[in-house]
């Protein structure tokens, strides 16, 4: 695909005897919201982990913006423009919401020990810009009212949103969300999906893992379905919904019976 931002090509990931991903190939076009769905243990999170450099793939390549990601460190991949959230929230618990987001913003900052020690103009400018950006993001996510509180003391819903704000602060081109609405009520889920649409409207490309199939139907442009580490469907929400393999995977019908 000419306009693809990220290409995953023939990706295989094995953990000892377990094959978590098997010859997975898909593309994400610029500006789209791609849903990545599949039953428990299908390999969705593993796919994120390979893309963001947590695991080195057993086979296959990931290409971002025309350049392979192999061999890059995790923080370098983030600086290239891929940011993520975690299925199990992983904030910096004793840091305030603002500080959490500023850590993300620092990915684009250059001040180091020297600049901080002498209090260089760049240090002051970056601190100010980081704060402003963090406050804007918290406001956008609707959680600015508790910006000064420790992440550990925030309600669950705030923590989930804070993770998204922190990821956005790194100024990514591709935002990967791993079940961002897990544990939400249906109303909260709808609200979050609306937010994700607004994030896309700002020009971001989004890769969204979600368990709730009906939820992703409404928000995604395209859906990739994983089952036992293999892609079983890749198409528009309508196509995927009517795909017999997908129905079988979700209803737990054995392959041969489907």
């Amino acid at each position: 695909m000419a306009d693809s931002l990220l290409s995953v090509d023939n990706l295989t990931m094995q953990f000892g005897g377990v094959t978590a991903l098997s010859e997975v190939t898909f593309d994400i076009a610029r500006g789209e919201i791609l849903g990545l769905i599949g039953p428990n243990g299908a390999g969705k999170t593993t796919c994120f982990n390979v893309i963001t450099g947590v695991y080195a793939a057993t086979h296959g390549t990931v290409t971002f913006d025309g350049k392979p990601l192999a061999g890059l460190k995790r923080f370098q991949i983030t600086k290239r423009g891929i940011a993520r959230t975690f299925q199990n929230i992983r904030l910096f618990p004793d840091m305030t919401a603002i500080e959490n987001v500023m850590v993300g913003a620092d990915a684009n900052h250059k001040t180091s020990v020297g600049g901080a020690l002498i209090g260089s103009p760049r240090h002051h400018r970056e601190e100010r810009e980081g704060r402003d950006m963090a406050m804007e993001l918290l406001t956008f996510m609707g959680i600015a009212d508790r910006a000064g509180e420790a992440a550990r003391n925030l309600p669950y819903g705030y923590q989930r949103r804070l993770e998204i704000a922190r990821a956005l602060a790194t100024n990514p081109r591709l935002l990967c969300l791993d079940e961002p609405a897990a544990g939400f009520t249906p109303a909260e889920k709808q609200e979050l999906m609306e937010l994700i649409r607004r994030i896309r409207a700002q020009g971001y490309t989004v890769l969204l893992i979600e368990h709730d199939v009906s939820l992703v139907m409404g928000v995604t442009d395209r859906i990739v379905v994983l089952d036992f580490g293999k892609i079983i469907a890749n198409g528009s929400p309508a196509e995927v919904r009517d795909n017999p393999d997908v129905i079988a995977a979700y209803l737990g019908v054995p392959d041969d019976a489907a």
Partner: protein
Amino acid sequence: MSLSDAFKELTSRPARTVSGVGERVGDMPRVARWSLIALFVVSLYLMPWWPEVPLLGWLVDTPGTSFEGVITDKVVIYVLVALGLNVVVGLAGLLDLGYVGFYAVGAYTLGVLSSQHANLPWLLCVPIAVAVSMISGVVLGTPTLRLRGDYLAIVTLGFGEIIRISANNADWLGGSRGISKIAKPPNIGPLKFGILDAKPYFFLGLTIIIVVVFFLRRLEHSRVGRAWNAVREDEDAAELMGVNTFKFKLWAFAIGAAIGGLAGTLYAGKVRFINPSNFPLQLSILFLAAVVLGGTGNMWGAILGGAVVAWMPERFRNFADKRVFVFGVALVLVMVFRPQGLIPRKIRKERWLANWKPPQRTPQFGETGTGRG
């Protein structure tokens, strides 16, 4: 449970949200705040005269030893060491069990350059010694900071011992006899650094501490401090948020080593005679105890912890051979009743938030995203 897990357990207790003295001072109007800080600093410079103050004098009394000697030979040095170790252990969350190694490198560099092999002046030797300590931190950190878990603890432990044993066996470092006639600081006006009056050394040490605190605060309130905290809280998440964790851990190590080395030069310049037995493993443990007792990750805690660990054994000299025992019991009691240390780490208070206004030209955060996408 591994050693490093136990350490994480100890240092990852939730920070406190409650306001302490520091927060209350920070909330004060500017004039009141600075007056109070000035008053506090002045009273610190008057410390050699504390024993003459009623009540306070009884409290700080060090029976059998001169209080002046205790604060110059031990307190200022332990405080400086605790400040440096706190960067490594408290801010970046790295367990260093061989910190005495850097302290020894600083002391020995001053000894070698000002007495053993050359006669360079103190003022020239100290920056060199700090640089050498810092380099030793980088050399030790480069291979080890890539490892996780107990490796770092074990390797640093080994480092401290290697430094001591090497010094013991190297003739060019004076072997077990050590190095004597080490250079002392040059006289500054009325401050004469001799053997009769310890006060000039105290003033020098206190001044160095204040300068170090000033710069450490700047680091803490910057991208660097945030990166350290993020590494301590969740190293993997930090890396995935774009923090070059290795680079910042190495900085923590190097800065910690430099401060440890500086403390070593202060010590060697005061006692003017060092030998390998001045740098035992127990000292590393004692330094670590100072940081943990004071409050891991809180600079004021480290200062207090260093001071208490240096002074308390002298306070209890009356107990003779049970002195160490009493000291140990006191430490355990503190840890039972204040498990996060005397001055626990605090959640940062974002004072600017109250006055924050969106910037004039409201840049939609998406602007940048669109630009890159």
